[in-house]
């Protein structure tokens, strides 16, 4: 079972290589009632403690496979289930410091059964649409 918040406590940690932190990862569940093909995702920016990581800096791992946002846009044959998390990975020397962090993740899903004028999402903006928005969870802990 997943946590009720879109941003999950489980899975939030630094990414280590050769014993050194080289980045960090955040797990999110879908906020949509149905799973989507990856090309329907509208991945946006990630903000940690006020620092913005543009969408191009975020790798989305879904079903064990890494995707850049450009690759997601073409992945119309791969599917993100609502019972699985996506792991968002961001490279950053040293990772995040031990202790509390405020985390925001922005994304949405395109929805063909809604009128085209409603099926819009600004990945880099801050507004909510019917099918997505910016999700925030405060005081996430890096151990």
């Amino acid at each position, binding site marked *: 079972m*997943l946590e009720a918040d879109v941003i999950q406590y489980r899975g939030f940690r630094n990414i280590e290589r050769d014993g050194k932190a080289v980045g960090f990862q955040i797990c999110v569940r879908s906020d949509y*009632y*149905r*799973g989507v093909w990856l*090309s329907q995702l509208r991945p946006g920016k990630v903000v940690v403690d006020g620092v913005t990581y543009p969408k191009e800096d975020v790798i989305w791992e879904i079903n064990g496979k890494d995707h850049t946002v450009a690759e997601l846009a073409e992945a*119309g044959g791969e599917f993100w*289930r609502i*019972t699985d998390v996506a792991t968002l990975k961001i490279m950053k020397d040293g990772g995040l410091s031990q202790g509390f962090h405020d985390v925001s993740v922005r994304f949405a899903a395109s929805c*063909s*059964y809604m009128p085209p004028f409603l099926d819009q999402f600004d990945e880099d903006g801050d507004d909510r649409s019917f099918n997505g928005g910016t999700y925030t969870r405060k005081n996430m802990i890096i151990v």
Partner: protein
Amino acid sequence: MERRVKRGVAIYSYSGEYGRTMNLEDCFKDLRDMGATGIEILANSHIDSYPALTDEYVAEWMRLCTAYGVEPVEYGHWIDSRLYRNREISPQEAREKLVNDFQIAHRLGFRILRTKMGVINAELAPMENWREIIESVLPEAEKYDVVMCPEIHLTTVLSDRFVQDYVDFINETGTKNFGLNIDLSVFQNRFDVPGVVVFNPDCKHSQPEEIIPLLPYVKCIHAKFNKMDDDFNELTIPYPEILKILTDYGWEGYLLSEYEGEKKDVPGFVSHELRKQHVMMKRILGY
């Protein structure tokens, strides 16, 4: 009394809890409590191996249906016409996904499909090449014994042109593999009730009797509900009139409950509202 109108549940209703505080078996447990004998699943939501179908899932599905006395009624799937950001999908791309859904639905025991098409305007008219796409898969639909049903849903009203286009398509092709799913939201005549989630307060609505000429084409009904009171009345949709028409005209099929009100993510809330709605439907139906 003949019991042609049957009660079921679209487990879309549980979307605020599914995968968090409820799993598939919890849904079946609720259905048994309500005496609901049919279920609608959404392929993209409730099949944990989608777009594949594993033997493990099939075995568990069969176990649940048998254990809880529930039959597979409707399989929800989509034609995501805007699958890619910069172009509409081709008929061939749509066809591949449709045939996959036919195969899954057939293996799980579903005959009726709620085929949700991409739309092009505020009235929810389908994409312009819907006939071409649907016609291209009619042989496979026949082979796998499934009936594709677009869902007629608010903000559409029954008098909208494309509803008649669907009927004309059925008559012109003579197909038995295309029909209609009427969502009772098309009869919603109250938008000002506290607790009702309203996207478009100026929405038109249809009158209950407008469903009569469509009944021969209606394979399934979404028993949409938004707000129950504690006397077991639904406050936004004229259920007594609609259900009387269905029984008077001898319509046979399932009413699949679909909750669209508030507090979907409050654990237990939707389960409670569904029970109220099924009390209402039992009282009106008389069984």
